[in-house]
């Protein structure tokens, strides 16, 4: 029972983290129609920046904030220098170009930080287990992730739904040409949106950093999940990304935790231990396949023009 | 009256709160040339889309040659003899005019799971293609890429492609759109020729063409049929004049 609660919270935490990553991706895709494979690289850079700045400043919070700023800046530079030239082109061109960027960033990181990964140790006050329910303890840091991610999700919701900028974003998602005709500075809007996406990716990366090692290629593994999420949720829909991310986070975590036991009841122990890890990894892809077969546009397709 | 080739019964199509097709019923007799006219927004294109299977009706039935085709996918309707031309030209741009027609002839022939023989060298298909092209006046342009054809030639090619599938019913969505006066006249003559072989449903704005060609005219306003009769009667119909033709003058072609 305790295990279920713990795994449930882990699933929630993982799902929220995935949401941060997926939200940026779906925003960029929905508004600029840009397929950005290098989104995972921004996630990686967020983690590397965090590890570096925390070590350099000696203070966890300061390091985190600096890392976030650095990733935001990197995102903006990337958009202005390279990615804005891809708007309006074939998705295949996006895939190819951003694939090139992945290669570039992976080697850049190797050049600057070396091939071995980095570690980001947590300050003492975040390693304390917190008693959330009598008898049930959960690591403070993971609770912090949940709290921060939910706060960001709320902020995102408020910005997109309640502010003028948000209105422009939503309008841009449904009719690109029109907001251009309204005299809004499209270039600036797009740069800001991309920067926001980059910051979200960086945030996800740096939050995940203390839990997993910071290493080259960490972006690719999680990028796939982010794409699966936005496909399930519906491209361009933040609400869809949220629902899908939680779903994916839960299924993946609970699957990995409980599937081996479940299988062991049905199959022999040897068969179960070979099948379990493969099957757990596959669950999310299975989910996506099912959703795509049943509803090819995703669960919450955003209104396109 | 003999069994109509196309029978539309109580067709309804809603888009959210808007009723684009409002309980529409219409019969198209075999062998006639039936024109559908109406002001912009009357729901002509929505109707055509439902007839060819691109859009699902919210309610109602469509019967073609006695068979209920309301839920049949577009490609199956084509195989049953329902051909269409597009309002906005829709051809295979990377292929030549002859290729476009030959593929349509190939569709008619069935047997497209052949993997080795060079399809462009099949004399039967190529001859059929050239014949159709000559018919519409594009004989000289057979080997030209579609992207290099003029707009008028593309409209004619659309017709040739539709004909190559040897249809029973031809649904033409504004074939005159964007044509100059000589080209229009040529198209009218072509359609007059074709009506003897195939039933035609013609959606058009060009009133000269409509009144010159149609056996019957149906007038659509706000998704409903307000009149369906011979051209002479339509010309005199008060409601039609008010809604569409205007009391003072007859609207001629656009552009």
């Amino acid at each position, binding site marked *: 029972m305790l295990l279920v609660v713990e795994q449930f919270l882990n699933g929630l935490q993982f799902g929220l983290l995935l949401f941060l990553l997926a939200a940026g991706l779906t925003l960029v895709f929905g508004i600029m129609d840009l397929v950005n494979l290098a989104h995972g690289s921004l996630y990686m850079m967020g983690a590397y920046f965090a590890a570096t700045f925390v070590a350099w400043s000696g203070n966890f919070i300061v390091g985190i904030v600096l890392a976030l700023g650095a990733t935001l800046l990197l995102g903006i530079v990337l958009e202005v220098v390279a990615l804005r030239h891809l708007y309006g082109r074939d998705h295949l061109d996006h*895939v190819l170009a951003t694939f090139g960027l992945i290669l570039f960033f992976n*080697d850049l990181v190797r050049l600057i930080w070396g091939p071995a990964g980095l570690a980001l140790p947590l300050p003492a006050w975040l390693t304390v287990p917190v008693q959330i329910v009598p008898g049930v303890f959960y690591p403070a840091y993971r609770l912090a992730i949940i709290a921060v991610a939910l706060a960001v999700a709320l902020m995102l919701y408020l910005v997109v739904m309640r502010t003028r900028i948000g209105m422009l974003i939503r309008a841009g998602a449904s009719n690109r040409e029109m907001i251009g005709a309204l005299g809004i500075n499209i270039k600036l809007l797009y740069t800001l949106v991309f920067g926001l996406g980059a910051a979200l990716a960086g945030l996800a990366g740096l939050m995940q950093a203390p839990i997993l090692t910071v290493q080259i290629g960490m972006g690719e593994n999680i990028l796939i999940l982010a794409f699966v999420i936005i496909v399930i949720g519906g*491209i361009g829909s933040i609400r869809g990304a949220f629902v899908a991310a939680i779903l994916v986070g839960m299924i993946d975590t609970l699957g990995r935790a409980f599937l081996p036991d479940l299988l062991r009841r049905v199959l022999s122990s040897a068969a179960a231990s070979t099948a379990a890890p493969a099957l757990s990894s596959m669950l999310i892809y299975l989910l996506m396949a099912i959703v795509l077969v049943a509803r090819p546009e995703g669960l919450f397709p955003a209104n396109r023009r | 009256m003999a069994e109509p080739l196309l029978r539309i019964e109580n067709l309804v199509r809603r888009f959210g709160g808007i009723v684009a097709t409002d309980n529409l019923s219409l019969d198209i007799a075999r062998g006639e040339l039936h024109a559908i006219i109406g002001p912009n927004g009357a729901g002509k294109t929505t109707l055509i889309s439902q007839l060819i299977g691109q859009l699902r009706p919210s309610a109602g039935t469509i019967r073609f040659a006695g068979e209920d085709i309301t839920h049949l996918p577009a490609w199956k309707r084509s195989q049953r003899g329902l051909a269409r031309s597009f309002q906005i030209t829709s051809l*295979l741009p990377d292929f030549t005019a002859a290729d476009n027609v030959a*593929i349509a002839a*190939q569709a008619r022939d069935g047997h497209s799971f*052949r993997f080795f023989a060079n399809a462009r060298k099949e004399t039967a298909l190529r001859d059929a293609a050239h014949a159709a092209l000559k018919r519409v006046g594009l004989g000289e342009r057979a080997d030209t890429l579609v992207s290099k054809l003029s707009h008028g030639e593309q409209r004619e090619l659309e017709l040739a492609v*539709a004909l190559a599938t040897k249809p029973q019913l031809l649904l033409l969505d504004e074939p005159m759109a964007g044509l100059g006066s000589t080209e229009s006249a040529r198209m009218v003559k072509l359609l007059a020729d074709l009506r003897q072989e195939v039933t035609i449903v013609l959606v058009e704005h060009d009133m000269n063409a409509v009144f010159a060609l149609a056996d019957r005219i149906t007038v659509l306003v706000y998704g409903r049929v307000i009149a369906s009769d011979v051209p002479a009667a339509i010309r005199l119909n008060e409601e039609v004049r008010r809604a569409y033709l205007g009391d003072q003058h007859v609207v001629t072609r656009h552009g």
Partner: protein
Amino acid sequence: MTSSLNARNVVAAAVVAGLLLLPLFSYLTSNVFVLTLFTRIVIFALAAVSLNLIMGYGGMMSFGHAAYLGIGGYAVGILAAEGIGSGFVQWPVALLVSALFALVIGALSLRTRGVYFIMITLAFAQMAYYVASGLSRYGGDDGLTIYKRSTFGGLINLSNRVQFYYLCLACLLGGIYLVWRIVNSRFGLVVQGLRSNELRMQAIGFPATRYRLVCFVIAGTMCGLAGALLANNTDFISPAVMYWTRSGDLMVMVILGGMGSLFGPVVGAIVYLVLEEFLSQVTEYWAMIMGPLLLLIVLFGRGGILGLLGRFSRG
């Protein structure tokens, strides 16, 4: 037809001639490395040719094509590990299994279009990757060593570098020939037409999914053959072959060479792999050059290398 078309034909002829004479060159310069390099290139060229069939001619952007390299390779590897070393059994099994997977994956994926199609093919390739990683009996993550190459009853010795190279080349040329016949056949014209204007094709009576699926299966099977060759080439097969970035490599080769042309993928494979080899000798950080290079090619080099030599024309 025009001089630009002749330029492409010249390149194609040069490539074929070069590939045919390569072992001679290797022998004369006592450079074994170039032979092993080009064996690998030829195998990937075959995979790229198969991807070009669905991408360039069929308009289906599959981001999971490397899965078939793995499927074909594992068919050979698993049978070898179980004591079945005869190529006469291994290779047909590799083709059959690849075809079956392509059938299932295609039937599910082709219900989607555009970027959704890209993502779902990606997902299936990842699934294959994870399944292979979970095969602990056959090495799992670490991969499976193949101790003996496929035997063909004395007809050909795959351990002989030159013989193996020519076998791979024969497969490549056979693949190109097959693609050439297919794209100009009735079937091929339908598939190309569907890429050009699906709505129009449906309006004249072609059910899109059926034709695309068959095309997809053909391409998957051809890539499975490349996988069997790859397993023999490296005497080893691992899940890494199917990781999604490898599918990305294949896509790059096809786009680089020029999609929808017969020899484009071959040129693309040669350029990509030679560049990778050359750059990695120059610097350890070759990807830092390759990456932006890809970006520049996308921005300025429309139609790939062969596209630069003349307009897109039917193969």
